[in-house]
């Protein structure tokens, strides 16, 4: 038996010692290794069974402007009751009319978030003016915990569709907006979010991160969800800052698919040890991103109850 085994091993060794065979084996192994590098982190973190509750922060983007004034307080209550501990909103106000409905909605919104102790992340979009930002922060700045300077700047259009921001434009715009916000001396944390495209313009997160407390990554689509552990690790490596998933969502009319996708992502990011993941959106009038009143709402509430302290 041992002679047979020895013969088999020697025959195998002779066979693989041929240049052609060895080349084919090496090429096949390279392909397998490449697939392992791409897919292993996602599969490991997504399937890792950690039953421990953590301080992982689940947040959500609330488009309060699409709701009536008298709905907003209850909506914040509902968001809080589901377990969300951060709400992300766009900077929207009317600096010209003090009691404009838009401003009243903000007053109501912040009275609710203050009552429940929900952290508010303010998104300053790329086209905002410093006057508007100053007005907003003077009036509501004390209610805000996170300030997002610019939104996915690496892929944003500067003045028209297709006219991508040049590096100089982005950096100067960022500096102006950062100085504007910093002049208010608010106890806020700064961040900027990037899409997957940051890989091609990595100088932006590297430059910006010097002034930021953490960096955001926006994840959409299954393919980028699978690849996101690699992108997150790379972003963390080049910026030396914590990475938070600042936009994560799926626009589909299939409520179950949306729910499964979101739960898969939340599990992944919690197991990766990230500080938080903010979903888009709570409500969404013009597409299917919103989770309000859909299967994802309950599923995520249950997930938070089971996984978050």
């Amino acid at each position, binding site marked *: 038996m041992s002679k047979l085994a020895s013969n088999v091993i020697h025959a195998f060794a002779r066979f693989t*010692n041929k240049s052609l065979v060895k080349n084919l084996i090496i090429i096949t192994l390279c392909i397998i290794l490449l697939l392992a590098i791409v897919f*292993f982190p996602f599969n490991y973190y997504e399937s890792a069974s950690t039953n421990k509750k953590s301080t992982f922060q689940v947040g959500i983007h609330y488009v309060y402007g699409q709701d009536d004034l008298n709905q907003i307080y209850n909506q914040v209550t509902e968001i809080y009751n589901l377990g969300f501990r951060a709400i992300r909103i766009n900077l929207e106000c009317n600096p010209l009319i003090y009691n404009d409905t838009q401003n009243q909605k903000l007053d109501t919104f912040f009275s609710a978030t203050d009552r429940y102790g929900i952290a508010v992340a303010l998104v300053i979009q790329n086209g905002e003016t410093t006057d508007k930002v100053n007005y907003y922060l003077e009036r509501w700045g004390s209610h805000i915990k996170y300030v997002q300077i610019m939104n996915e700047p690496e892929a944003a259009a500067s003045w028209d569709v297709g006219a991508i921001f040049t590096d100089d434009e982005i950096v100067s715009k960022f500096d102006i907006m950062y100085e504007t916000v910093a002049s208010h001396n608010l106890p806020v944390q700064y961040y900027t979010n990037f899409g997957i495209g940051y890989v*091609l313009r990595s100088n932006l997160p590297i430059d910006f991160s010097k002034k930021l407390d953490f960096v955001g990554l926006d994840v959409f689509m299954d393919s980028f969800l699978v690849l996101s552990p690699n992108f997150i690790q790379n972003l963390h490596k080049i910026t030396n800052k914590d990475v938070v998933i600042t936009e994560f969502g799926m626009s589909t009319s299939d409520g179950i698919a949306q729910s499964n996708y979101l739960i898969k992502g939340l599990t992944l990011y919690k197991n990766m040890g990230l500080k938080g993941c903010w979903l888009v959106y709570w409500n969404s009038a013009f597409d299917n991103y919103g989770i309000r009143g859909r299967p994802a709402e309950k599923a995520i509430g249950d997930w938070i109850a089971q996984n978050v302290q």
Partner: protein
Amino acid sequence: MFSNNKIINHFKNLRLIEKLFIQGIIVTFALIIIQLLLDGAKSSFMSYMPPIGLVFMETINYGIQPLIIGVLNIIIIHTLYKLKGWQVGFWLNGIFLLLTFTTINLLIQTVWGLQFADVAVIDIILLSLPFGCIARFSNGGWSKPID
């Protein structure tokens, strides 16, 4: 003259397991040092006229680095095993070793949550011999002169 060097002859007369260990430790060291240098220079590359810096970095990472590793591996094989020529091209051999090294490190870092510095120590202490076997298997030569 090179082949008659006493030190080289001493290495050639070592036992197989010792040769594999030496081969593993040299290749592992080379991979770790290149990795550390690339990590250190990553921000500079990324910030250099993007995306040109990225292209340069990836060219070094997946073009030049495998060539260096592949050449180093065949030199070790020639030196330790009295062989000539090679069965697998330098680049292919190098990229295979690089991908193997990267995959092993990725597995360790992901499962145990370690930093690269910790993984490098594990690589050298525990994985030199297996890596030597992989390096030896992944290329070879012939004991007779090549025409």
